[in-house]
């Protein structure tokens, strides 16, 4: 058997430069296209048009009306549930507690077909409407679990 002479083996030198070039190009591409995406979530609301909803069966429970009033600049001026006016620093928390006590009386949270209608001033900033929807639809308990309160939320038809 012929044994190969290993004494003068050629030294293999890897050409690193092109690889590093490409790697840097890739890196630059990913750095530039990188965008921090904030987690987003939805409130799923089924809102048929008012004419369609009128033809459907009317709910047994009376409709709760939440009235959101706005100042001229669109800030929140007042929150009202039926005839109950909420004041102070945390009107939405009071609204939430009020609705929860009403729902709890009527067979426990989440088990109701209670409908809430939000009537807001035209120029009210949307974030307050979102706060109202949050207060109406549910809560997060101390363990971080979500509990549903009222699922049927709708906006009042716009006045002309």
């Amino acid at each position, binding site marked *: 058997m012929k044994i190969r002479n290993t004494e003068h083996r050629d030294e293999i030198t890897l050409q690193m430069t092109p690889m590093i070039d490409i790697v840097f190009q890739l890196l630059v591409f990913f750095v530039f296209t990188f965008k921090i995406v904030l987690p*987003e979530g939805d409130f799923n609301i089924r809102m048929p048009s008012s004419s369609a909803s009128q033809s459907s069966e009317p709910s047994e429970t009376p409709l709760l009306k939440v009235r959101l009033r706005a100042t001229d600049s*669109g800030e929140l001026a007042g929150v009202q549930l039926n005839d109950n006016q909420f004041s102070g620093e945390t009107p939405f928390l009071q609204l939430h507690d009020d609705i929860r006590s009403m729902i709890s009386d009527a067979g426990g949270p989440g088990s109701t077909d209670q409908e809430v209608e939000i009537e807001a001033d035209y120029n009210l900033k949307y*974030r307050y409407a979102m706060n109202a929807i949050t207060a109406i639809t549910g809560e997060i308990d101390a363990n971080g679990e979500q509990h549903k309160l009222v699922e049927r939320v709708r906006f009042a038809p716009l006045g002309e």
Partner: protein
Amino acid sequence: MRIQSKGKSGIVEGDLTPMIDMTFQLIAFFMLVINFSDVEQDQRIHLPASELAKPPTSPYEQPLTIHLTSTDQYIFGGKEMTQLTQLKSALRLETQIINRYTSKKLSDVTVIIRADGDAKTGQVQEVIQACQELEFERFALRGKQSEVSTIGGN
């Protein structure tokens, strides 16, 4: 003056291995976090925060996304509109496409509404009403997730 011999000045090769390791790690990181699917997001919209806004459990089937900016503009299908009538005609076109090319009912199509926190609530209502007139029923009001309570509780 004695001049030092420069006889042994060979090519100095730095050790590239740690740098390449790091670079590959960076590339792997960026490849994993990159998200090409967020085409429906628009950086001009600053969504209102809510602790209850939860990501959909399953992605919507061909949803329509309507953006509303704080400067009273509507963005639909990548086009900016200032008038509600423009949005209505664009939506009408969309309904015709859905009716003609899909078997879906309009009441099963989800309309995602991404409105800025400073947008007018009345405008959001107008958009919803315009959609309702075209027989859309499912709406997803989009908000940004929040770790803290946004209604003033703990």
